[in-house]
């Protein structure tokens, strides 16, 4: 069980991380857009982006299966054209993590951008710097802490992903099985002690992730004891 356990932990952390990295660019762009736009349709976009958070994860998994299944248009296209299988591979695990974590990321990123005093980038423009330069030197650094917090929240959600993953990736030991899937399987075949051991391990992993993130967030906050 020992090498299996190590593999499980490594795999789970890796797919959760990959899922977050995959969503990060989209999450930042959408969060920024939502924070800035005055377009009346924004609440619809926001609702759609939030759906994976409130839908039963199995429904999310079902939708993903509809899109990426080998017999579905996109899934078939990817397979025939690029020899790329999504469903029931590790890629589907990453995809499931990404989709369920996305809403958490978008919401925190939006709040982070909204928290930046709009007069700061405006003032930066009067100093002769163009909008893109201002975004990367003022707006983004000021929102970075919130974005980091959002990414960590998304990562934590991805770590424990179960419903969507089992629908679109199955529960294949050594291939698509994450810790939460393994615990489910162990209990269902009556190997409770091993399930409990895994449960303890997942608590430790989650604890480390949150603790590290708190430290990161605090360190990035340290030089900024801004009172105003």
């Amino acid at each position, binding site marked *: 069980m020992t090498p299996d356990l190590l593999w499980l932990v490594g795999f789970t952390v890796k797919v959760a991380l990959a899922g977050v990295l995959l969503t990060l660019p989209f999450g930042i762009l959408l969060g920024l857009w939502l924070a800035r736009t005055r377009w009346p349709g924004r609440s619809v976009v926001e609702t759609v982006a939030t759906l994976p958070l409130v839908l039963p994860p199995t429904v999310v998994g079902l939708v993903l299966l509809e899109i990426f299944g080998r017999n579905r248009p996109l899934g078939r296209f990817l397979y025939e054209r690029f020899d790329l299988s999504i469903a029931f591979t590790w890629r589907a695990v990453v995809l499931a993590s990404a989709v369920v974590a996305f809403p958490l990321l978008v919401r925190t990123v939006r709040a982070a951008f909204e928290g930046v*005093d709009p*007069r*700061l980038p405006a*003032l*930066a423009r009067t100093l002769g710097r163009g909008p893109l330069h201002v975004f990367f030197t003022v707006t983004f650094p000021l929102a970075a802490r919130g974005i980091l917090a959002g990414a960590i929240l998304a990562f934590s959600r991805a770590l424990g992903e179960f419903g969507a993953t089992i629908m679109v990736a199955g529960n294949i030991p050594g291939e698509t099985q994450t810790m939460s899937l393994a615990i489910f399987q162990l209990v269902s075949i009556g190997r409770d002690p091993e399930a409990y051991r895994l449960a303890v391990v997942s608590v430790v992993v989650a604890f480390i992730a949150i603790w590290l993130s708190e430290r990161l967030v605090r360190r990035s906050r340290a030089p900024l004891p801004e009172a105003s």
Partner: protein
Amino acid sequence: MIHVRLRIPLSEFELSVSLDLERPVTALFGPSGVGKTTFLEAMAGLRRPLEGEIRIDDDVVYSSDRGTSLAPEKRRFGLVPQDALLFPHLDVRANLLYGFRDGGALTLSSVSEALEIGHLLERRPSRLSGGERQRVALGRALLSQPRLLLLDEPVASLDVDLKDRVLPYVKRVRELHQIPALVVSHDVADVLTLADEVVVLDRGSVSDRGRPRTVLTRPAIHGAFFKRRFENLLESRVMAHEPEEGLTRVETERGLPLSIPYREAPIGERVLLGLLAEDVLLSKEAPVGLSARNVFGGTIRAIEEQGGVAMVEVDARDSIYVRLSHGAVRSLDLHVALPVHLIVKTHSIHRLS
């Protein structure tokens, strides 16, 4: 020469200002809430005016007729906001260099020397005093080599310590570098110290303009300041010093003798004194046993009332305005031509220049 003509909609009225900035420093003067900040933002390109034109020499910065509106970064108007707005994630050095353009006469070392902020370069804005922040904000604007400086209430932040006052630095910088400046302020002292010309704003339009000393001592602007801190301005001359008493004796142009806090100055020097209308006490009887050193008689020339506030103009050789509540006017039964006594503590009188 800088020509500005802007119409900007505000919530209660429309701001309509037309200016030719001919002098090095022009002050836009008016009470809070007349849209002075909004006007500066429109100048800087951060807010769209209804219509108008901004020209600097032959360069059209904004013109509603031609449909021209340069982006803020192309205008090169250095804005110094009221609350400094330093970038909180950058230290002072990085703040100063944010918009740095090489090639001008201004360098980091010359600016930080002139503004006396050289020792602060490694600090974060959160660890600066109010005056230091203002100076850094001024330096940051200067280092972007602006064609025009826009200063929003340079010393209005009330917590700015006197020793930190930014005005001397603004003055020094202006003398060194000849960058024209537009200052908005509601503070008489600011305008007098800094500006070569003042433009008075009242209800969104220009009501008066000219040399600061001439314009600001006119009672005509009085109406606009009814509800706010109105300052009596007294042109005076130093008559005698009594250092052991802590006093300097002065006399106004019209011959009203006053005692002010001791300050070294040659006898005969002309000084401009400020006295807030709310700092003057009024009494019907001659007061006895008071600690205040300035007690003098006069007659009420006029009483104007508005919204529970009364401005009583007392003729005591000079005209002195006293701000009272409506209730005080009634219970004392004050009326025009009534002889009264005015009481002023020495420390209520301050030198403006």
